[in-house]
């Protein structure tokens, strides 16, 4: 597509500020202006990353965090999507479920942490449950809204052109709601990481959040900062993946 091709300048300009900050940070750390116990130098953080990679700890914690995020996201996302579809398409389902879902939605899911620990202990179930719960509502709301806001005239046209229920759904309703559904998914990815960070920090024996909390006990500043950076990278990468699919699925919108 035209306009998508970036010149070398456009490619590098967004990275000027991060690069400058890291360079300044490194220089200030070397000069001693930033004490090591407040903030370790970038080079030390990289070194910590390398060390933990060699011992295999890092990949283990990252793996378990990713697994929790993915499983929770799939369960919550699929449940939100299915309820959104049902309530968006069928009037009875809407009447039956929507009010209850709206009530549950208004409970901050992180407030359930004490309860969830009582129910499931600090094992995997509690983390996956919290992530799924957090992801469910944004996906639900946006799927529901996307279906409700489809142009009724297009549906009428589809019926007049002899589409049956299945064709109507796959050719008009689902693509019509897609942009809103994708907004919900992108938003829920943010919720997913946030929930996981909190859950892992409070109650876990593995995962990036646990790695950070554990490092705190041993005053390993470099590992703490490394954990934060890994979360940031996870968030950025998942958003990029979502954006990629958005571009693919909404090609007609450009």
């Amino acid at each position, binding site marked *: 597509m035209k306009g998508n091709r970036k010149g070398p300048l456009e490619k590098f300009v967004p990275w000027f500020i991060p690069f400058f900050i890291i360079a300044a940070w490194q220089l200030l750390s070397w000069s001693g202006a930033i004490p090591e116990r407040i903030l370790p130098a970038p080079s030390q953080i990289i070194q910590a990353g390398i060390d933990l990679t060699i011992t295999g700890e890092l990949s283990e914690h990252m793996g378990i965090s990713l697994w929790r995020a993915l499983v929770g996201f799939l369960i919550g996302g699929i449940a939100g999507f299915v309820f959104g579809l049902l309530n968006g398409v069928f009037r009875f389902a809407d009447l039956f479920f929507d009010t209850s879902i709206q009530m549950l939605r208004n409970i901050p899911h992180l407030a359930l942490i004490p309860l969830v620990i009582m129910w499931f202990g600090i094992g995997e179930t509690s983390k996956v449950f919290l992530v799924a719960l957090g992801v469910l509502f944004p996906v639900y709301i946006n799927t529901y809204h996307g279906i409700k806001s489809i142009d009724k005239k297009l549906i009428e*046209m589809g019926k007049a052109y002899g589409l049956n229920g299945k064709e109507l759904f796959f050719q008009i309703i689902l*693509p019509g709601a897609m942009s809103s559904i994708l907004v919900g998914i992108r938003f829920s990815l943010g919720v997913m990481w946030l929930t996981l960070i909190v859950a892992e920090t409070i109650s876990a024996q593995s995962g990036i959040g646990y790695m950070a909390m554990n490092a705190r006990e041993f005053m390993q500043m470099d590992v703490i900062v490394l954990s934060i950076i890994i979360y940031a990278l996870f968030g950025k990468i998942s958003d990029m993946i979502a954006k990629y699919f958005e571009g693919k699925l909404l090609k007609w919108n450009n």
Partner: protein
Amino acid sequence: MNSHDLQGVDVTIHQVKKKYDDREVLEGLDLQIREGEFVAIVGKSGCGKSTLLRLVAGLEDINGGSINLDGTPLEGLNKQARMMFQDGRLLPWKRVMDNVCLGLPSDEKDRAMQAITQVGLKERIHDYPSKLSGGQKQRVALARALVHDPSLLLLDEPLGALDALTRLEMQRLIESLWLERKFTSILVTHDVEEAVAISDRVILIENGKIALNQPIHLPRPRQRTNPAFSMYVEEILARIMNRKSKKNYSMLVNTETESLFNPINN
């Protein structure tokens, strides 16, 4: 799809009534349309002309009377009809080809291609509707309607949003496809000139009833420069505005004087 096995349907509208809440839009309307006839319906906005079209399409239920297609009462959706809407109603997420294929069995793609070629958009089959001009969008909508070989084409002000030149082009295109395939056609329009240019008969709806039923006896292709053409337009406009036209054109309804306006043909 040889043109000889395509034909129009006979539409008989008898005492049709339609109410929205308490407002009566159509109050016992009678209209007989022969198979293969091209009828234009004009009238002020809100007179019920679009409603009548939607009733014939089966998109809404009638509150009284009957609509018969070749003698069979219409129930539910009118499967013999295809409708073209003013706003096109193309699916923005489908390319031109897939829009035309809507509702078509998957093994009949070549027919879609043929329809697209007929409306002159062969080069654009892979484009999304957002890349097309208003006139091109309506061409796609026309192809989408015609690909099903309808025996009744319903046109709900399909050219209303187009510029004058594109409109003329589209009128010619619709006329030529109609001449070729001989489906019955009902055009709702607010443009009297368009109605006279394209139809066999102009119907004026007023207060939920037919106020004028004016056959147009002009040779095709119609010349807007023909004095008889402007007479028809003026007469119908005068009738819509409820004023007497300056001259008496009552002879227009008289078929005996057809030769007067038809010097080339006869």
